């Protein structure tokens, strides 16, 4: 988490959110939608686009008026701003992606209560300049999308044998065996289609990403220590 009062440059804020403080595998926020919408790549992509939009613009807006927001009603104002942007997403999806909208409408609405968005507003946008806040929101959205898209890729491939199912770009990579219809060595994994499948994939994704970033941090720490051996040891995030 960015400490209060500490200012970050926009690009620094963005990358911190994408990787070091990734909302899914470091902060473990926004898990509910990660479980629910990730069985099809296209639905996930729309959901991610919606979240990136909502978190970037609400961070920017909140930061813009942060000095005018009364402390006592700040969370209400934040939620109002988030809902406004999320309703925009909902309206646009309904107009242009009607069939996908039917599947993900419930989760799009839930972006309003997605902890990532409110978390970034409270944790960063209320204390930083608009551009840095927008970058921070964008980073959080991209960090979320990075993990969700990987999960969706695995779940759709194993669950349906396809990628981008129900769209014009559908690719069938694995044709499943069906009694009396198709002969194949492949069987679709039903568990990947239903939400519990996401638990397994999410857990494995978090495991891989964490062990990788822990190694990276250990290496970075070793370098700083060898460069400045007299400095007292810093606690890692």
């Amino acid at each position, binding site marked *: 988490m960015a400490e209060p009062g500490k200012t970050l440059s926009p690009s620094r804020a963005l990358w911190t959110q994408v990787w070091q403080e990734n909302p899914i595998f470091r902060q473990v926020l926004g898990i509910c939608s990660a479980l629910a919408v990730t*069985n*099809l790549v296209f639905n996930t992509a729309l959901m991610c686009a919606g979240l990136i939009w909502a978190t970037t613009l609400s961070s920017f807006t909140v930061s813009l*008026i942060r*000095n*005018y*927001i*009364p*402390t*006592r*009603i700040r969370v*209400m*104002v934040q939620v*109002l*701003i988030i809902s*406004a942007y999320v*309703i*925009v997403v909902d*309206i*646009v999806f*309904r*107009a*242009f992606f*009607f*069939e996908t909208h*039917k*599947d993900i409408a419930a989760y799009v609405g839930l972006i309003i209560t997605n902890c990532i968005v409110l978390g970034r507003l409270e944790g960063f946008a209320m204390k930083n300049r608009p551009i840095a806040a927008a970058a921070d929101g964008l980073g959080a959205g991209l960090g979320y999308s990075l993990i969700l898209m990987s999960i969706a890729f695995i779940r759709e491939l194993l*669950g*349906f044998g396809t990628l981008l199912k129900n769209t014009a770009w559908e690719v069938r990579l694995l044709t499943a065996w069906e*009694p009396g*219809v198709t002969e194949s060595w492949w069987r*679709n994994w*039903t568990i990947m*289609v*239903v939400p519990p499948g996401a638990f397994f994939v999410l857990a494995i994704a978090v495991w891989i990403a964490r062990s990788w970033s822990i190694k990276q941090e250990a290496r970075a720490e070793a370098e700083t220590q060898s460069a400045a051996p007299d400095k007292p040891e810093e606690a890692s995030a």
Partner: protein
Amino acid sequence: MKLNVNSPRYVLVFAALVSTVFTAGIMTLHAVSESTATASAQLYEQKSLVEVFKLGAGEQLSDRKIGDLYERSIRQLDMALVDSQTGKVFNNPGPSAGPLAPRAFVATNPGGTIIGYAVPVSGIGFWSRIDGYLAVTPDFSKVIGIVFTRHQETPGLGGRITEPKWRKQFAGLDITPPGAGRPSVYIGGDKPASDNSPAHGRYVDAITGATGTSSAVNRFLNRDIDAVRRAAEEAGLIGKKKQKQQDLLQSSQRTRRGERDIANRGLPANRRQALNLGH
């Protein structure tokens, strides 16, 4: 001047201002996008109906082609279709009927002969409500096709009710009155062993791993088939009153071309009365 952002008056004014600004923004966007959203919803319904009647089958249909096929061949049925036994309404052509009123459709080929009717079917699935259309031949004896327009079944399991591979089993299914106490169609269970079996010509394979959804569809489809058969008899589409209605329907079709927009919402009041006289 330094603002006291925590004074009650400021808090009230600020809250009102922020609410007004954002609400106005959303209302504007909503108003601007309303027509596109309605068009998308309409196209989706037209696509489902074109599909259920098997129009343009085998072709890759563009949005425009779907609109054309729909305009040319499909329109809402212009008589009420109600089963008085259960009270289920299949078609409400009245001018006061809202956008959510149940609607049944009739498809005709260019010569004007009726290809079939599509009636709304719905019921509780494994998780939530399922809506769809069942298209039947003009004599209500065989299924042309079925389509599900809304459901919340598990994707990949119960959700497979939307897949053409499963739905194509319904084409040609026998739905003539099955005899007392028997269902019209059999979804799942044992395959009919012989031609004499009551399930012969009425059997559809259930979806593996989705017994709940399959039997739910079986339940509401049988209920709706029985109800729509009674409703069609009452409306005179089949059975004793058929001939009289058929004549009226044909004459209303001849005058239809000039009043397409009216026909889409049902017939004008005077003609509807004329149809009601046949009851």
